[in-house]
């Protein structure tokens, strides 16, 4: 590798002006040029916070020598007078793939899944490539460099954006004159991570973002273990990771959720990730701030949707319109909250959009100094290159911009972008700005003459009185050429005028009239008419003010989000029918007092000063519904890449913005267990949450929650319905399923023994979790259908001396209820689902009642976002099918799931001292006519019918306002994009992530 590098340097150096000192000169005499260049009379912005007025910047050999007001110029010095102009350190984009080709997907891939790694001698997973070096693939891209230079950039960091661990990136100056030996500032400056798999490998694992997170963690454990010299074999990937451990780590998050997930991993391993964000950080600014991480923020703003067709407009969701509306505030919000961040052009379709986007952000309150820092000093510091780039301090690279005025003003012209002492001209400074209005006098007539447009591409307009005359203007090297066709000419003939513009504001020249006679002419510049300009300005201002009216954030920032989070209240329910789920049974005409988030009193004639009193006459009060088996409020369900995935946890991927949380609340649900899917015999760990709508993912998690893991049996784990290509993975039969458990638990046992012995061991997250089961610290809830497999798993557990806690679905539980009772396992089943696949042929709606009759703790679960919001109706089916009493049926969705989840000490019944997770129903809660009117969690009302009605009105109003704003934008000529609606994905047990 090093040899190749050397070769490259030699080849490139032939083009060198300043050949390296120890290189022979074989094609001519050896030359060197030690000249200085001085830029004088400029406003020099050494750094965003340090400015020298009317100063001099002295550079030599591509670096800054000195700067100041009293610089004595050396003799071999070229001086460039920059009177009235500004010098800024040029920009740095630290997140690019500049010069590195995107890898291509292999063509014609096999349809059979691949489970093992393709690379030998590296980590077991192809998506872990810390050994990948951006430098090895780097090829300076002059065309792209020019785009960056035109936008004001002087330096970029670049890396291969492929894989979960992506290896190292390099820092390179956008020096189009010299070779790599000059412009590459650091060959290995950064290391890179993401949650996205490599496109070059088809290795199945991981299939989900929670799998990617688990994999990253395991790699860190393994790297540590490897570093300690414990491995008997070589692993070049781990070696590379260990050798680049001192480099800053950049994590490509690309979404707000992933921002926080990245931070979570970083905290676990004591690392400082630099997180490449999404642009939506404003939505959870407090959490972002609390990460204390540095960020790289894309400067990309959504275009307004084309909503002129009401039919299409109806398809745009409020959250997407809000994103369009609020997105431009992101940088301002981050800056105001003192989040340390650099800017990147990474997500822009074209770098040309950079300036307009940045100006937009500034219009939305982004501080200009902060903007400059985010483009210079901050990325320099994050890259560990503050002494070389980012400022114009002595010794830094001479990477700077020359501008006509203050940066980030619309009018300011970027004249030159110097990179490592090499000039790139963007706009010729010497071109005179002759734009303006003139009185044009030719052949005795006076015309109105306006020159407008870009300096390099002027436009002319000639009017006689109010009649427009066809004309054409060209302007180069100080000479103006003007053609026009005088009025009332039958033939198209031209008056041709020319003039040098180097004398003052007015223009004098000669030309040829239509008749061929020479003439002389003048254009006298008009005084600016202030009076005319002003009304125009005002008009513009008015428009602008309306167009960037920003809608307030809600919690969460989607439809039905709260403008203000609801607060805990002391609440007194009067004269209500209370379903206690305790020995008291159903109490009529009873009062319930809620205080400090707990049920404080149950009885008659309770009074409490200051309590909010709710009349419960004719209504029913119950504890909140608990769904043992849910897949809402998550962005992943299955990690299907392995048959055992105990290492993944749903707690990593809780989605607090899912509107189904709100819809569940409206159905009286207060607690749910988000389970891993059923793709594997050993699934992932569960997340137990309370539906505190508007709270962050962390706040949703149940406090002091018992630990659960999902297992699964049957058709799903043996991939029966996955098509004929999925016949590779073990197990493919129920016989194999047993052996998966035997294998994993045996290994977990041996692992745990080794760990407990105090001898060195390789930390394995998966084994740690399985050992928790063996040590009775974690419960299993197992997706199950057929009696044979249910029986089997209980026997496996017996062999390893632990108990299965819950069989979920458990559709043939009724066939082995006696055995289940003996084992001590509970059942969480569907009320009436069947016939959707072969293994549910014998599923019967009497299952719950039969298991209940045998003394098993029975719950009804949903596994479905639609059913979960009316689980009260499902509970009623236990009355219909099997004749349970209403009181017992109600426990199927409240107390019994609480028991199965080991949280019945806090929730599941209306009892003094328990959490005030309560629902007020309009009717008997088991009745189809019952509606949840108020749902409370820990004394906070998260749903009530009045607020819901109000929100419906507000959503309509907000949608309308936003659609009007978009139409305004469209009429201004802004680009719009076709309406888009995110297709909401509803998860079930067998759902896979679409990546």
């Amino acid at each position, binding site marked *: 590798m090093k040899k190749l590098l050397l070769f490259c340097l030699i080849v490139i150096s032939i083009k060198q002006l300043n050949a390296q000192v120890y290189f022979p000169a074989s094609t001519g005499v050896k030359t060197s040029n030690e000249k200085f260049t001085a830029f004088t009379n400029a406003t020099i912005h050494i750094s965003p916070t340090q400015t020298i007025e009317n100063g001099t910047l002295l550079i030599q050999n591509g670096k800054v020598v000195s700067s100041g007001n009293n610089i004595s110029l050396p003799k071999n010095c070229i001086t460039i007078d920059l009177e009235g102009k500004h010098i800024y350190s040029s920009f740095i984009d630290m997140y690019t793939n500049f010069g590195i080709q995107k890898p291509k997907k292999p063509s014609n891939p096999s349809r059979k899944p691949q489970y093992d790694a393709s690379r030998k001698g590296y980590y077991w997973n192809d998506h872990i490539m810390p050994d990948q070096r951006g430098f090895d693939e780097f090829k300076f891209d002059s065309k792209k460099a020019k785009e960056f230079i035109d936008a004001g950039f002087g330096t970029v960091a670049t890396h291969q954006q492929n894989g979960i661990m992506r290896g190292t990136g390099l820092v390179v100056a956008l020096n189009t004159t010299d070779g790599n030996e000059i412009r590459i500032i650091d060959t290995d400056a950064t290391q890179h991570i993401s949650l996205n798999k490599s496109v070059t490998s088809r290795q199945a694992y991981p299939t989900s973002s929670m799998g990617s997170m688990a994999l990253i963690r395991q790699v860190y454990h393994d790297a540590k273990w490897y570093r300690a010299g414990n491995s008997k074999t070589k692993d070049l990937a781990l070696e590379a990771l260990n050798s680049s451990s001192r480099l800053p780590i950049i994590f490509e998050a690309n979404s707000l959720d992933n921002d926080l997930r990245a931070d979570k991993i970083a905290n676990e391993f004591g690392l400082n990730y630099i997180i490449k964000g999404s642009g939506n950080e404003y939505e959870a600014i407090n959490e972002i701030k609390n990460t204390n991480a540095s960020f790289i923020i894309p400067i990309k703003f959504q275009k307004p949707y084309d909503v002129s067709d009401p039919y299409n407009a109806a398809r745009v969701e409020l959250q997407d319109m809000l994103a369009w509306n609020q997105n431009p505030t992101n940088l301002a919000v981050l800056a105001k909250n003192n989040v340390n961040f650099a800017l990147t052009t990474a997500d822009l379709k074209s770098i040309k959009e950079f300036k307009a986007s940045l100006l937009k952000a500034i219009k939305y309150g982004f501080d200009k100094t902060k903007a400059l820092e985010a483009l210079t000093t901050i990325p320099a510091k994050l890259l560990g290159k503050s002494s070389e780039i980012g400022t114009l301090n002595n010794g830094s690279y001479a990477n700077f911009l020359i501008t006509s005025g203050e940066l980030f003003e619309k009018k300011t012209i970027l004249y030159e972008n110097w990179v490592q002492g090499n000039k790139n001209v963007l706009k010729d400074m010497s071109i005179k700005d002759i734009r303006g209005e003139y009185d044009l006098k030719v052949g005795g007539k006076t015309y109105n003459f306006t020159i407008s447009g870009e300096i390099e591409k002027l436009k002319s307009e000639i009017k006689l009185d109010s009649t427009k005359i066809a004309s054409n203007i060209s302007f180069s090297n100080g000479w103006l050429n003007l053609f026009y066709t005088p009025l009332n000419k039958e033939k198209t003939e031209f008056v041709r005028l020319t003039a040098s513009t180097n004398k003052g504001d007015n223009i004098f020249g000669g030309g040829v009239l239509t008749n061929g006679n020479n003439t002389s002419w003048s254009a006298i510049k008009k005084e600016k008419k202030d009076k005319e300009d002003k009304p125009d300005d005002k008009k513009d201002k008015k428009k602008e003010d309306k167009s960037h009216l920003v809608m307030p954030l809600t919690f969460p920032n989607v439809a039905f989000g709260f403008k203000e989070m609801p607060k805990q209240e002391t609440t007194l329910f009067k004269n209500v029918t209370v379903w206690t789920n305790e020995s008291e049974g159903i109490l009529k005409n009873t009062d319930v007092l809620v205080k400090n988030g707990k049920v404080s009193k149950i009885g008659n004639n309770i009074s409490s000063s200051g309590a909010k009193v709710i009349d419960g006459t004719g209504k029913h009060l119950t504890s909140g519904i608990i769904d043992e088996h849910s897949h809402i409020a998550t962005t992943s369900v299955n990690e299907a890449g392995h048959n055992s995935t105990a290492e993944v946890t749903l707690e990593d991927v809780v989605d607090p913005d899912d509107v189904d949380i709100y819809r569940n609340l409206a159905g009286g649900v207060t607690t749910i267990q988000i389970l891993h899917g059923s793709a594997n015999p050993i699934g992932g760990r569960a997340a137990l949450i309370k539906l505190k709508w508007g709270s962050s993912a962390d706040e949703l998690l149940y406090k002091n929650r018992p630990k659960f893991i999902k297992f699964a049996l049957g058709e799903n784990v043996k991939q029966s319905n996955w098509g004929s290509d999925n016949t590779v993975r073990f197990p493919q039969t129920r016989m194999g399923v047993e052996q998966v458990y035997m294998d994993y638990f045996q290994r977990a046992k041996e692992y745990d023994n080794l760990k407990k012995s105090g001898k060195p061991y390789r930390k394995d997250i998966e084994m740690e979790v399985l050992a928790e089961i063996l040590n009775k610290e974690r419960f299993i809830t197992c997706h199950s259908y057929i009696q044979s497999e249910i029986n089997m798993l209980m026997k496996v557990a017996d062999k390893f001396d632990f108990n299965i806690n819950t069989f979920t679905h458990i559709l043939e539980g009724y*066939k082995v209820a006696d055995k289940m009772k003996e084992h001590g396992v509970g059942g969480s089943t569907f009320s009436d689902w069947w016939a*959707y696949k*072969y293994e549910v042929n014998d599923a019967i709606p009497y299952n719950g009642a*039969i298991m209940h009759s045998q003394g098993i703790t029975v719950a009804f679960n949903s596994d479905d976002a*639609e059913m979960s919001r009316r689980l009260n109706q499902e509970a009623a089916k236990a009355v*219909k099918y099997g004749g349970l009493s209403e009181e017992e049926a109600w426990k199927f969705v409240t107390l019994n799931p609480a028991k199965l989840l080991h949280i019945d000490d806090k929730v599941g019944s209306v009892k003094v001292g328990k959490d005030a997770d309560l629902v007020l129903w309009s009717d008997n809660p088991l*009745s189809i*006519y019952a509606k949840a009117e108020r749902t409370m969690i820990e004394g906070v009302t998260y749903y009530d019918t009045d607020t819901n009605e109000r929100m419906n009105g507000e959503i309509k109003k907000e949608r309308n306002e936003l659609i009007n704003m978009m139409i305004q934008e469209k009429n201004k000529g802004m680009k719009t994009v076709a309406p888009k609606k995110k297709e909401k994905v509803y998860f079930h047990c067998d759902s896979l992530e679409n990546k």
Partner: protein
Amino acid sequence: MSKIIKNISLLLMLVSISLTAQQTPAPIQTNDITIEGATAHLGNGEVIENSLLMFRNGKITFVGKAEMKIGRIGTIIDAKGKHVYPGFIAANSTAGLIEIDAVRATRDANETGTINPHIRSLIAYNPESKVTESLRPNGVLMAQVTPRGGIISGTSSIVQFDAWNWEDASLKIDDGIHMNWPSSISFGRWWDGEEKGPKANKSYIKTIEKVRTLMNDAKAYATGSKTPKNIPLESLQGLFDGSQTFFAHAGGEKEIIDVIAFCKEMSIDKLVIVHGTNAHKVADVLASNNIPVLLDRAHRLPSSNDEDIHFPYKHAKMLIDKGVTVGISIEGQMERMQTRNLPFYAGTYAAHGLGKEEALKLITSNTAKILGIDDIVGTLEVGKDATLFISEGDALDMRTNILTDAFIQGRKINLETHQTKLWKRYMDKYKNQ
């Protein structure tokens, strides 16, 4: 002796259980039946407390008050405190066409090809389906059996749920032709690198044009010599002579308006909108053109995050208030096994503003009207089929939807199922242990 007979019959019962899973269809009604004392929900909005209902030879002969001094006929069922309902009808169903969703060999709802008007659902209807059997104890006694897929999916028929074969089962053969009206919006094929999410469907007009050509061809064909025979064109003729209904499966308001215009252009008189996700936005047009809607079941999620979370529950009322005739389409996730929840979809619509009797119409008289079988079923009225049932309580509420008796064309059907048998079998196992 009687003991022996009892034992033999028990033995026979056990044998029949082990031989076939399905219940044997009941023989033709020969004994008259009187149901007395029940609250009768006629299905047309009327309720008769303490009612008297009599039927003979499969037809209802009397409906009135029990106080009436009139001779009771045949076996008298005392139904005091109970409720009697006309049999529920599941529209746009695939009952009997698919047994187990995940097992391909049992799937007979979706023929290959896109223009299949000649494909007839009745042919594949399995009257011995275990799933269909399980619908009966909840009061669902009839269904429109509908082919799925393609642009023109095929021809549906209406069946009752107690039959030896599809001929016996049929109530109305080839009642309508079903078309999946295209969507004016299509979804990006993100796996092919297109942007995710909906966009204007470029093939919308093309697809409609294809069907327009087909319909025009069919009309032209009818006026010619009809040789050689063109089976698909032949099968479309019922749409133009009014003997068949055009069931347009469409959701969006734009699509619904386009369908209506299309049918006018084609002189298709009988049009029914199926699904009607946004039908409320064009309810006035539907009402003034007398076009009914088979609305999706109430137990569904809002179609967007912004939508009123209770919208799916309120939808029927919104349309009925505007004068649209509404029934319930059963199509959706796990639709065959979910068909037994049809009463509860109506119950949910009832709870959200419609009221019980109006909601009952959604699965009885309205559906009968929409399907063109209101001359024989759909209400408890003299002259109609005695296809009805007795429930312990309100049949729209799962707590009280507990059937004691059910009749199809006057035949008393067996309410046992594969599922109740398993229930009893295992309860017995535990009792005897």
